[in-house]
């Protein structure tokens, strides 16, 4: 326990020297890796740039990765250094130095981690608001909405085990396929007819839970990029959860209107059987509800599907 002033000074100098060594290795590795993350991997990061929200998600992912790299290397470089230098020699059954704390190091650690965490939370909040909910479900009446006057409205109806899409601006038709025009702001009204599902259009950067009896709104804006995107159910919904996917396309505006018109004609027969467009649908107890609950319907006056 008792160590002299001189020993203490030597130990301090040694600590400082080793500290700089670790810092130098860390700095080099961090700079190189962050460069690679940002410029080499960055442009290829998921989920791509098909829509504004997807691009924003890609940017945020890239940003966080660049922030995480220094943390990873701090632990790795330190750990590697310590294991190489402070490993007990074979046969050495001695103990290490007595060191029960270091106010300076601890203080720096507390402050640095707090600053970093607060910055990340602020950054996340800014990105969430600046991107109008960044493609996530914002509840029935989101407070962050895009400025576009009249977005294309698509109702996503999740049911066990398929998504169907309803188009209030196209005569209330319903389809199983999903095409979107380029350069358009799209409003997804996501709801469910039975259990909780989740509408995840991967390349579009849209993800919103489909809750029974709830309208969950998500916005995105397509860019001039055309192509195919995947829609998957992202919340466990039973036996066919894994098979509950379909593909959609972003197409040019004229192609989209052609497709929509064709769908309207094709579906005319069934569209008139559908109930009026509504933001949510409560189940009918007249036989289409499975008879789990008794047949009287306390919600009898509301719109049933």
């Amino acid at each position, binding site marked *: 326990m008792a160590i002299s002033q001189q020993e203490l000074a030597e130990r301090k100098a040694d600590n400082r020297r080793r500290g700089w060594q670790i810092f130098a290795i860390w700095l080099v590795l961090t700079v190189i890796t962050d460069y690679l993350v940002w410029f080499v991997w960055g442009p290829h990061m998921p989920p791509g740039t098909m829509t504004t929200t997807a691009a924003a998600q890609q940017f945020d992912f890239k940003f966080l990765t660049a922030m995480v790299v220094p943390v990873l290397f701090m632990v790795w470089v330190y750990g590697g250094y310590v294991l190489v230098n402070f490993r007990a020699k074979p046969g050495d059954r001695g103990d290490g130095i007595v060191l029960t704390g270091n106010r300076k190091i601890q203080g720096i650690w507390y402050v640095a981690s707090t600053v970093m965490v607060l910055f990340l939370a602020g950054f996340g909040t800014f990105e969430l608001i600046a991107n109008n909910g960044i493609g996530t479900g914002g509840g029935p009446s989101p407070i962050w909405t895009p400025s576009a006057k009249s977005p294309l409205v698509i109702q996503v*109806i999740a*049911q*066990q*085990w*398929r998504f*169907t899409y309803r188009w209030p601006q196209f005569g209330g038709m*319903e389809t*199983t396929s999903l095409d979107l025009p380029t350069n358009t702001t799209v409003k997804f009204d996501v709801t469910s*007819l*039975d*259990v909780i599902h989740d509408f995840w259009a991967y390349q579009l950067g849209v993800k919103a839970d489909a809750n029974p009896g709830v309208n969950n709104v998500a916005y995105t804006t397509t860019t001039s990029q055309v192509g195919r995107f995947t829609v998957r159910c992202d919340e466990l919904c*039973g*036996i*066919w959860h894994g*098979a509950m996917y*379909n593909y959609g396309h972003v197409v040019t505006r004229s192609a989209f209107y052609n497709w929509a018109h064709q769908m309207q004609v094709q*579906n005319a*027969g*069934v569209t008139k*059987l*559908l*109930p009026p467009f509504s933001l949510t649908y409560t*189940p*009918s107890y*007249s*036989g*289409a*509800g*499975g*008879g*789990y*609950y008794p047949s009287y319907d306390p919600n009898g006056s509301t719109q049933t*599907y």
Partner: protein
Amino acid sequence: MGIVLVSAAAAVGLILFGIFGYLRTYPPTVSAVASSTQPNTVNLTMQVDGAVGTGPHPNWVGWYIKNGAGKWVRTTLVQIPERSYVHVTVLEYDSGGPLRNEYWGKVSGTVGGVVNLNGKSVSVLNGATGNGIAHTIVAPGLNLAVPVWGVNGQASNFCQTGPCGPSEAHNVETFTFYSGATTHTYRWQCFIPCGVGYLNGNGGPMSATGYMAGFFKVVA
């Protein structure tokens, strides 16, 4: 002690083998029968009953499929060849009702976009009228959606348990679909909430292969 441990390990292995063997239990797969008259065509005959009458859940709704020997097999797994037309005959013995989503009353993915219901060609069925729709055959991967019209549940010759016979009340629905150029295992299911007694009608038979959930296995 070593011997005891080894034999214990062997016993554990056997138990595991048994458990996983049990979990692997699948309904049998029935192959569609090649047509003797038309090329590139197979025939598939299915019946759907209000109560299958056998197995661990005799009162669940479920399908029977006719195998090559002309026997009814209680399964929903069908093997069909690729690049062929599948000519399906559905014998429907169950009562019907409204759909949870009336969109599924629309026929799609069949040749001509129609089905033949008791000799009449139809493209949309309205489940809110008449006997209603009993079941649907929907295979999203094949873009196939076929509603099947129900029979009157009060009929005197209504089939109580399967497999049902020709003398009992039924509808005959036929349609043809193309199996596509790729080999794949396509799921198919019913979109009528017919799991009666389960919330939303989607539990029980709706969530079990061999009853209302199945596969079309398209093979080379």
